[in-house]
């Protein structure tokens, strides 16, 4: 009664196996993604001279959060205000994001044109992780190619442009470089394998 080893059954078993493997890989990638802290700093890349603009700091993690952020302010820029209490020492500013996932600071651009570097670092006080970030802002009378943002609503009247800033990987975090790439390759291979098994 148990002899059902037909071609159809073998194919069904192979399909189930492939599905199981794909599900396992997806589960692993989801778990990994949830433990990686993601601190993003968003800013316009081009602003006009003397223009006020906002820098957004966003923590990609559920509450609770306690994150310290420091930012080196390039010469000529002025810090106007922040949505959270902040301190300034020389050309550096710092703030703490406590049970907040978003902070917003308003700066005033210098009157002179040029490209300026904003750099800083963040320290997660609850998870022993930290990282650095660096972004460049051009101050220009001519606004070049503009890519409207979908993630923030600018508070200044001037249209903002590209906002994703490069952030270096956390120093003590355990990032998984190329993990998504490998996951993609594996998933694709498994789909091909599944088709081949048919």
């Amino acid at each position, binding site marked *: 009664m148990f002899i059902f080893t037909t071609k159809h059954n073998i194919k069904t078993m192979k399909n189930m196996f492939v599905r199981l493997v794909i599900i396992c890989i997806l589960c692993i990638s989801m778990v990994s993604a949830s433990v990686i802290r993601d601190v993003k700093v968003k800013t316009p890349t081009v602003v006009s001279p003397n223009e006020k603009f906002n820098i957004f700091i966003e923590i990609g993690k559920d509450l*609770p959060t*306690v994150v*310290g*952020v*420091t930012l080196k302010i390039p010469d000529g820029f002025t810090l106007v205000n922040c949505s*959270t*209490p*902040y*301190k300034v*020492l020389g050309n*550096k500013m*710092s*703030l*703490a994001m*406590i*049970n907040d996932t978003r902070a917003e600071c308003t700066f005033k651009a210098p009157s002179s044109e040029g490209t300026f570097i904003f750099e800083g*670092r963040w*320290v997660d*006080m*609850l998870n*022993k992780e930290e990282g650095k970030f660096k972004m460049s802002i051009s101050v220009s009378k001519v606004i070049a190619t503009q890519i409207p943002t979908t993630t923030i609503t600018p508070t200044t009247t001037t249209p903002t442009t590209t906002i994703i800033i490069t952030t270096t990987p956390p120093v003590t975090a355990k990032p998984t470089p190329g993990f998504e790439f490998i996951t993609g390759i594996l998933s694709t291979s498994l789909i091909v394998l599944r088709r081949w098994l048919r």
Partner: protein
Amino acid sequence: MRTVFLASILLITSIGLVSANDYISLFNDNRITKDELANVIADYMLGSSRLSLDEIRDASYVYIYWNGEPKSIVDSANRTITIYKPIKRIVALHSDAVEALVVLGAEDKVVGVSKYTKECKRQFPELSKLPSIGSIFNPDIEAIVSLNPDVVITYARWPDPSKLEEKLELIDVDTKVIRLDFYKGSTMKEEIEKLGYLLDKEENASKYIEWFKRYENLVKSRTPEKKVKVYTCGKKPSRAFGEGTGPYDLSVMAGGENVLKGKEGYFDVDPEQVIVWAPEVILMRSYAGGYETDDISGMKAEYEKVIYKSGFENVPAVKNGRVYVMSFDFAFAPSYPAALVTVAKWLYPDRYSDIDPKEVFQEYIDNFLHINFNVSEQGCFVYPRW
């Protein structure tokens, strides 16, 4: 050499003291507020803080998980212990504390153990590999300080404060001494709850307390009005264990009427007095058995000291074969409920025919100690054997 060591420890400590005081000053109004935390974090990020990153992390943890407030308990020596930062490093001066830490799931915080715990390779396969801090009666202060513990856990009575707190205070003000016994049934639940609270292990503490209460209530519900007369002693029958001692507590919680009622502590009695008391059951505490040996001869020898003692042949407990030896590791530790059921069954065998104390003990080992240990095949915990 010792002087040089102490001098260097003092120097390092005095440097750290400034920062430690700054940390404690965050609690001036007994609470870290959001603004205070934001302030110290902002200072740190600018490189102008007197607090270290670890201290700021601790303050952040306290703000988020302790509502910004320190944690306080009253320990078993009746002293108020206040903790201002999460406990990360623990020195456990006695094995009962080590066992309690395992029950609470906080074994990863233990950094030093006594020389006796180091011999417990079966019961604590990993923790027995940790550095030794000497014995409970003569703790090695230099060894303790070198492990940089946040807290030292020891018994309520031992060692004397002059051998521990007073010496630690001279060197390291940051280390707190918490006196919790974990060997008496009457205080076990409360002590587990307190330590669980300090270590943020409330869930595991509740799980244990629930298990404890299950057997405590079972024994209460089966204890008859007419109680069995019990005498509790050490390995020598003349060494009585009176009120406030583990064996006395156990005999009473198991439903016995102890003949030593009204007499406190450990003391010698005239064997003639034991004969006069005429206990129906004699319970002996032994150091001979435990997890680490399969050789029952030590417990048997202690048992024979009582049953063959001249004059004792007329004591009801001896005459009726109701003398029992319990291993210290088993009966006076967090495994207490298993011992409670064991003793209750010795006192009232007819009322516990459906209960196998060995199974209760195995349940404890599997669910709380998480070691690969079979009580039916390994160790010696009671004599006569289960």
